[in-house]
């Protein structure tokens, strides 16, 4: 089963992402793991590898950009697909995320269909992480 790590400090947003991806279409169902902060993600990453990490940018302490860089620098998680989610207002942050190696971004408010199709696009033809 494909594993997805959702990093987001808002519980309602995590639930939203979970319900949007629940069914998963052709590739699903997914094994969705939720992290409540950047640190929580660091704690959960060693339990991977994950096929995909979806992360918010604006989080206290370790922000989403730092997480993206960490994942891209790590041998173990290098091939993990990465989606950043951010609000429209933080364009600068989004550009930085993409230059750090995120595969795609989605703007908040999230659209469940766009989220699912982005996830499917990134995971299709990508070998399962293991």
């Amino acid at each position, binding site marked *: 089963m494909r594993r997805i790590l959702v990093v987001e400090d808002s519980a309602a947003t995590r639930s939203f992402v979970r319900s949007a991806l629940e069914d998963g279409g052709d590739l699903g169902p997914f094994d969705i793991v939720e992290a409540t902060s950047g640190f929580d993600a660091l704690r959960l990453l*060693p339990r991977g590898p994950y096929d995909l990490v979806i992360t918010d940018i604006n989080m206290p302490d370790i*922000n989403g950009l730092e997480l993206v860089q960490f994942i891209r620098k790590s041998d173990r998680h290098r091939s993990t697909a990465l989606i950043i989610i951010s609000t429209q207002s933080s364009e600068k942050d989004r550009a930085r995320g993409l230059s750090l190696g995120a595969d795609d971004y989605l703007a908040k408010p999230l659209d469940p269909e766009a989220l699912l199709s982005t996830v499917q696009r990134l995971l299709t033809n990508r070998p399962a992480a293991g």
Partner: protein
Amino acid sequence: MADMGDKAREEFFSEAHEIIEGLSRDLLQLDSSRGKGPVDPELVNNIFRAVHTLKGLAGLFGAARMSALSHELENVLDDLRLGKIELSQAALDLLFRGVTIYGRILAVEKGTRSDPLSDIDEFLRELADLSESQSDDAPISGAFYELDPGLLAVLTEYEEHRLRTNIEQGQSLFRLRVRFELATIDAALSTLKTKAKPHGEIITYLPTGEGAEADSIELDILMASKASLDVLRSLLGGEQAQIEEVPRRSPSAKDPVLVPSRLGSHGPSHDPLPYASAHPASAPPRPKAVAQRPGALPKTASTAAMAAEVSLRSVTQTVRVDIRKLDLLMNIVGELSIVRNAIGRLTESVRKSPELREIGMELYRLHRGFERQLADLQSGILEVRMVPLGQLFDKLARVVRQISREADKDVNLVITGAETEVDKLIVEELSDPLMHMIRNAIDHAIEARIERERVGKPAVGTIALNAFQKASHVVIEVEDDGKGIDESKLVSAAVKRGLLAQEEVTELVHREVLNLVFIPGLSTKSDVGELSGRGVGMDVVKTNIGKLGGIIDIYSERGIGTKFTVTLPITLAIISALIVQVEGRTFAVPLASVQEAIWLDPAALRRVEGQEMMTLRGATLPLCRINELFALSSVGKTKTRPYAVVVSVGARRLGLVVDELIGQQDIVIKPLGPSLKRVKGFAGATELGDQRVALVLDAPALIEEAFLGGGDAVVGASYG
């Protein structure tokens, strides 16, 4: 609101609510810290993040007005945290208003309130005006630092701003390389933050990705501080932390990193800049793997495994639970106590039979065990329902701030006992009445500045909000040092409106006069509120508190102030009650109001003004005959020596005259059907476990009735 599942909707409301409460707290803190040195950037950022999260939530759940509000607030807050606009009084006022409007929007979305919210557009324009008046980015002062571009590239716009601000303020930059055990990172990090806070600001935390292990992680922490390297080393350094000062580069050096204005052009693909690799000597030595490091705590394989297990846990150890689920559990406990009572009765009869004595004793022991466990379960659930009143008081602090500004009065709110805990439902229901009382105090009781000075009072008025527990009740006092109630004006207004006969006036004692503020016809007239210095809508306040099984008392002294005392039960879910019988019918009296039960001594009885009284230990106790009150038809056997159950609420006492005392029992109060609902005097009904249903007497309402008489509803008139 967009279509979505009930559960998701609930989650949305509860998270939004939580965030708004936090937002309100942070704003109050910001308000009180204003003018006392530099504003805490972390606080402003927390406020920004709260609104940011609300915006995300509102978008997800299609709450358009909340989205629009969040969007404008976010712009203002973003400018504030990025230093583009000043934290002025006006800005702060707008933010406070924003919190209030959030509350209204939520109530409308929830469907608990109809509010056209017509003033929102105007408010949004004001917010937009504020954020448009911003100045452009301040020029960079030109300090040069040798920073790893990898580190710079991952700063968010906000972190970049904080870095720039700190450099402009002449702070030095330090890099801390710290290794944390993943299992304990939260505690370790918060210790580090607490230690670092007085000495500077932590800009960011960057996981290095080097020497990554399953159970520990290395972080590069970028910190700005005025302290010297030695001070920071002794403060924060240690075996797991290396601290280096980030060297300043001379501006003439080749390829300087101008911090941080050119950040945007630096991607990770750029050549590494000096700090990271060209100056390897200045970089702190890389710690070896944890287990091998000399001096590190010896760690066995099993604790390592445990740490890995622990690391799977989420950061927060709390769960959010819908209060209705707790109600359901409480109902089950209630049903179980009915079973317990039935088993108890069965046990008693088994024990009485000589040939079943052995079994009876065993049954008795089992029953006692069950009783204890059930009591533990019940108190456990009750405890979960309890929340500190501080949550509500924070909200009221905001109201005081807002109303006092509207009324142009200086008011100081003094809160004590915010840690006192009450059932969540009670806290919810208390919000409106308390808010109302506080509004009255500011609008009508606290005098204008000039007036206060004229009578020799401090210019700043004081409202005290005190909470404390008293036996199984919680007492909340709302006290002001305003002008107090003018009794004569109150009385004449009551007479004028025909609520009081002229000849009755002389018979009224102090307390009865003050209690006139609770009479509907009188207190809803705002002009009387103005006259009396108090009392707009106090009848509604009283009714709402009565619904919670509470009572409100008033004490006022002309020129000195007014004090309202609200006495409430701690929980509504399950109560101990005294079961009594009157004319063969069973009633329950909540034990929380029962002081004692005594035999009625016919010799001590007398009648004063139609009210039956008895003398109890030298004091007068008014009596209420339940059979007469509810017009119960006699079932024949007349009780020669009935009992008086003495109930009290606040300082008032009343003796309820009943035929038999059956015993004490825990009961779950169920609401009455529509036909009995309008009858005062009953708090509800309950099931006693032997298929019998008993009506629960509402002691506060009965006391009310006995002391003030009349009223708008007739107690018990339709029960027979």
